């Protein structure tokens, strides 16, 4: 069949988008059902609050302010999803992005609060810390054949407790609370510059260059993967390790380098959050922050494309924050996390839905062809 059907639905991008939307819809339906089962009275309102997020505020000023906050938290999430998808394109599942994110937070906050370093130094050390952790996973994979998922999970926990320890140092941790001290008061040059961006969002203090920086990184990742010799090598290594070796690529170096870059992206994500001063690190937390894990869902929901990730990161952050506004008179406080995690969980099904769409189209083609052949009497092959 030389003739190809070029209708919209046959384009891969459209299929991915459709699959993503189906996932989101499915997530909301199941979330709604759960709310209905728990308490039918508030279900409709609760689900609409999650969808609305900052739109629930009536004044345009507050809406803009909370949109700003959503965007501030979108930037690190986008970075984590870039980290996941970069490794994924090279054939590795970097679940260690969560730990690399923690490493980045540790390095950025320590350099900012202890050494009073300027913001750009803090970003660089955060990237270096994430890269170091990623490179460990990569090296374990190439030299000892340890699956990066296993080493990633282990390193997540190791890094969490190291971070809690490091950030409990005097002069970094607030002696009165489990949190680190504020950058705003102690090291003003450690805060990311705002360049007037805050004026777009009702002077929300946390709006900084982090947001455009993350978007630039997404574009950079896309360019590197698709346009450069380096990206060509990395993707070849990911698709077929043996062919990469056969053609003389340094396949081991490529894997370690990929994990290092992936780690650097996650580490930078943490810096882009904590260096805005929007929150402090809690040195007593005993679970790895969800940011890195959510990056996995974002990457898949975005169809594993850096550009798609920008949209999906915003969406996931939108519903996560929206969830925190759910009325707790009907529901317990954890309900928001439950609903948003249900939706995020469903988001991992993009591949499945895309496959379903494609096989549906294929079946239609097959039926058409068989019919055509039968009419023709089945002539040439």
């Amino acid at each position: 069949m030389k003739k190809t059907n070029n209708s919209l639905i046959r384009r891969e991008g459209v299929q991915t988008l459709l699959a993503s939307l189906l996932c989101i819809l499915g997530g909301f339906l199941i979330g709604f059902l759960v709310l209905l089962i728990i308490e039918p009275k508030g279900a409709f309102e609760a689900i609409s609050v999650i969808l609305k997020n900052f739109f629930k505020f009536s004044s345009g000023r507050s809406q803009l302010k909370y949109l700003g906050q959503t965007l501030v938290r979108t930037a690190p999430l986008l970075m984590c999803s870039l980290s996941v998808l970069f490794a994924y394109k090279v054939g590795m599942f970097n679940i260690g992005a969560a730990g690399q994110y923690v490493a980045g937070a540790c390095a950025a906050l320590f350099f900012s609060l202890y050494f009073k370093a300027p913001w750009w130094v803090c970003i660089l050390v955060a990237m270096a810390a994430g890269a170091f952790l990623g490179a460990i996973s990569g090296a374990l994979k190439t030299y000892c054949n340890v699956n990066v998922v296993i080493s990633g999970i282990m390193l997540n926990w190791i890094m969490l407790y190291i971070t809690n320890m490091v950030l409990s140092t005097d002069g970094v941790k607030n002696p009165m609370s489990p949190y680190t001290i504020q950058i705003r008061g102690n090291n003003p040059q450690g805060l990311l510059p705002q360049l007037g961006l805050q004026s777009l969002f009702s002077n929300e203090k946390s709006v900084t260059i982090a947001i455009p920086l993350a978007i630039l990184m997404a574009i950079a990742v896309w360019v590197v993967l698709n346009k450069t010799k380096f990206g060509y090598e990395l993707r070849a290594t990911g698709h077929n390790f043996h062919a990469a070796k056969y053609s003389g690529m340094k396949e081991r170096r490529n894997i370690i380098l990929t994990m290092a870059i992936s780690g650097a992206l996650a580490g930078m994500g943490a810096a882009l959050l904590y260096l805005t001063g929007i929150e402090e690190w809690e040195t007593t937390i005993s679970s790895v922050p969800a940011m890195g894990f959510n990056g996995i869902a974002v990457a898949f929901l975005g169809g594993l494309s850096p550009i798609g990730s920008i949209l999906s990161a915003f969406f996931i952050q939108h519903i996560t924050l929206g969830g925190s506004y759910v009325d707790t008179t009907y529901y317990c406080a954890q309900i928001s996390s439950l609903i948003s995690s249900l939706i995020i969980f469903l988001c991992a099904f993009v591949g499945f839905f895309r496959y379903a769409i494609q096989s549906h189209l294929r079946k239609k083609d097959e039926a058409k062809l068989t019919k055509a052949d039968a009419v023709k009497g089945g002539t040439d092959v």
Partner: protein
Amino acid sequence: MEQYAVEMLHITKRFPGIIANDDITLQLKKGEIHALLGENGAGKSTLMSVLFGLYEPEEGEIRINGKPARIKNPNDANDLGIGMVHQHFKLVECFSVLDNIILGVEPVDSLSFLRKKRAREKVMEMSRKWGLHVNPDALISDVTVGMQQRTEILKMLYRENDILIFDEPTAVLTPQEIDELMQIMKNLAAEGKSILFISHKLNEIMAVADRCSVLRKGKYIGTVNIADTTKAELSRMMVGRDVKFAVDKEEARIGGEVLKVEHMTVASKQHANDAVKDVSFTVRQGEIVCIAGIDGNGQSELVYGLTGLESLKSGTITLCGKNITKAPIRRRSRFGMSHIPEDRHKHGLVLDYSLEDNMVLQRYFEPEFTNSAGFLKRKAIRSYAERLIEQYDVRSGQGPITMARSMSGGNQQKAIVAREIDKGPELLVAVQPTRGLDVGAIEYIHQQIVAQRDAGKAVLLVSLELDEVMNVSDRILVMYEGEIVGEFDPKQVTVEELGLYMAGAKRMEVEA
């Protein structure tokens, strides 16, 4: 109609864009050996998949022993007494021969404990009766390919299958083992078993079959009595035109030494022995040196060592006067080595890359295709790929942007051949370059290899096909258990003689 064991009547199976089986009728008489002949892609495998219930045909009927049968899965086929020896054996390597035979139909007592003694007696009795010599306690990984095949046959007989299908059974055997298999097949048929013998080797069909059905491009061409036909007629039916069995080539004009391998030893990944033991040879300009041997005698490891995919345990390799023993793969390639790998899917291609990206797999980093900032020159890659596609007649659905995965095996191989030859190598290492290809593609690739030789390049060909070895090469080295056991001029040696060396029955001392 009572006399047919299997009847597949007017079977039609369509796939999108292709009719794999178009009104095919195959009738297997009880007690006969019936050959099914056809090129790759003729529809033999599809037909067998229909028989085993893996595909449901759109039209047609299957009758077993005269009764219409509905076969939905391989278990149904088994229940009807149909058994198959696959081209690639389905054996558990770390189980014994006996365990493999009883696998799935283990004899147990009322408490589900294994009762192997009874099974062993039955197997030994069958083994004696049919002349299928096996050692029931040896592990599959330790026995010869021939014994593995006999184990597969015993598996069918143990299940009391009466309809036996052999899928390309001789591909992995030595000439002597092939003779034995032919005898076994004749014995089985004489005892009333019905045998379907799938092959594209005409000599074997002429030697053993009673009748032969021929398929071509999904269509049924006809069924002939072997007694009334000739090899030439069968090949005409199979290919649709007269086939040249010999490769046209001029006298070799041999020049200087290109490759010199001295005392090469390569460790094995599977077992403690070395896979390649102290091998020395040379390849000169303008000659095709062929390494012949039965699969698994160290040829793959020899190539891995030579091309840098694995490191040597000892020995030296010299290419065009430069010592490349420890050189990385890329440097070997830049010194003039091209490599058509044995496994085109594992090494040769990135299947999820487009054809154009695969065409530059060995050269993407050159200034022609990458600018100084590290960006790929997409336009240059496209026009380069277009030139190769045109020049080497690589066919694909969408030209340079076709995914390699969606191309046919023959065209995938042509793409690799184009890429490796266009690099302008001093030494071309071609490993089973025609495996699994149809006659047309084989002819083409042989022509390309001979053209390289005539252009004064050195060619090292590794092949398991004796016809290819005899027709293409200028010098033959036989490998057996990791050593070179003989060196021959193809004009002065017979296939039978080569077979003795390949099986390890004879050896000569070869000087380096």
